[in-house]
């Protein structure tokens, strides 16, 4: 069955029109995917640094107290260890700025059940600036605990 109303000349230019309408949408979607992907990459990297910092800080015990009294007490310099190992494992870039790096010792320094290292950072957007989203804020947290070999 042939549609006798089909006129090729009448439909000429319709593809161009569709492309003109959909192309910005595709570009926006592509930019969205790229920016979100970058944010996830940075989050992964920062999370790795947090994990290492939490692990290293957990090992930072007052060894003198441990040797003499058998207690597991965090040393005074454990915050320095957190900062040191975080920034050793995360090299800052212009596209990602650390807003906040926090740590928290669960229970107490004399009985550290675990150490929580929390980080918040802003990742600058490339494409989403078009729709006024200049940056994406990422949050990540890692826990570290000392474990006696047994």
């Amino acid at each position, binding site marked *: 069955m042939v549609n006798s109303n089909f006129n090729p000349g009448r439909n000429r230019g319709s593809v161009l029109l569709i492309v003109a309408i959909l192309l910005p949408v595709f570009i926006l979607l592509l930019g969205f995917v790229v920016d979100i992907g970058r944010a996830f990459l940075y989050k992964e990297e920062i999370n790795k640094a947090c*994990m290492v910092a*939490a*692990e*290293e800080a*957990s*090992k930072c*015990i007052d*060894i*003198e107290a*441990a*040797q*003499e*009294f*058998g*207690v*597991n007490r965090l040393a005074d310099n454990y915050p320095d260890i957190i900062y040191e190992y975080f920034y050793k494992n995360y090299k800052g870039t212009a596209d990602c700025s650390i807003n906040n790096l926090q740590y928290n010792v*669960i*229970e107490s320094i004399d*009985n*550290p*059940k*675990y150490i*929580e290292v929390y980080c918040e950072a802003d990742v600058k957007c490339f494409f989403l600036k078009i729709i006024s989203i200049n940056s994406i804020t990422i949050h990540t*947290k*890692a*826990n*570290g*605990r*000392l*474990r*006696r*070999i*047994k």
Partner: protein
Amino acid sequence: MIKRRLFSTLTVFLFIFVTFLVPSDLNAETREFWVDTSHWEDQEVWVTSGHFQDTQEKRWVDTSYTVTQGYWENSTKNVWVSSGYTASRWVDTSHNVWVSSGYLQSYWVDTSHYETRYRTVTGWISCNITFVYQNLPSEPKNVILGKMWDYPDTKYTGIINGTRYKYWKSYYKLLPANNIGQQGAWVTFKTYYHCIEMEVTSAVSYIVWVSSGYTAYYWVDTSHNVWVSSGYWGSKWVDTSHWETATNKRWVDMSYTVTQGYWEYYTEKVWVDTSHYEYKAVWVEDGFYTSPLHGEVIVEKSPRYIFTRWHKNQNNEECSMELNVSWKVDNSNLSEGEEEKEIVRIYIYQDICRFNNKGVEKVTIFNGNVTPSVEGSINTITKFDYSGNEESILHIYLYAQNGESAHIYFSNPINGFRSINLMSEGSNSDANTWLGGNNYGKFEF
């Protein structure tokens, strides 16, 4: 009867006497006792093991056979018969030979020619140039009279400004008022050099015939062809090969092979050898006999909780164990004539019972002779590679000169730790505490 009574009385007396000879608090055992130093040792043992395994294999069973058949066939065919003979003939090798020859012929190349040359001629030419020389730096004051004095008759020859001239002089003299009445009142203010001739040097050309030349050579080529007559008697093969018709009988083989067969599956038992070396804790029976030794030992251990060397203290030094062993031998109850007992050798080691059934690690802390003494001490520092549980035992053996020994041992766990990452929910369990806690002890033996 009297004899029997006397014998029994003597026996009772001897028994009582011997009983009092051995002091009971010294554990005066006259016999040597066995010091058991048997221990577990990790040894590499070859464990022979294996099993038969059924494996499914596939093989090709060939049932091919050959059918032999054929027939004799008479055939006529053209056969090429190779034949011929050798005939002798004269082979003429006469030929032309090109003889290269020639010689050098000399000839004179005359290069004589006229040459224009130059020479310098110096002479005088007339001129009319006057050079003025001012004799004074400035004109004198109060000049009342000036006059030119010419001497054209006196000719001079000299160099002025680098050119030789013939000239005469005139002087312009002034009479200052101050000089009136004095000898030489006229002052020569300027001298004029009137040049009448000047010396000129010029180049004059002239033509000269120069005779010259050289000898040159050219090659006169006398090369030519020479006919050389030569030859030899040679043999030549005269081929008389030809086709001949031949009849023969041949077997036409019509045999053929029928290729066939099939794959057959069969099961075969294969020995899988799983023999290997295994580290096994082997009980090594060891020990020796020694007589009793009495005294006291003071063991001081620092710190109370021991950590492996992989952990650092505040000074960033590896954690270690400092052990001080002091001894004092009790020689107060020696029997008469018995030599005073002294400690001559110390053997200290730690059996670390490692976690996760990794066996027993023996660490020798001290094993050597010491200065023989009744009372003394040694100090050791030991670093441990592996952590161990509460069953880890520190053994101290003190040996006297005659082989007597004392054995002291106590639990000495070695701590180690590592850190882990937890899931986001964290952990509710308390922080781990450390094993051990003893730091000293006084032992009597």
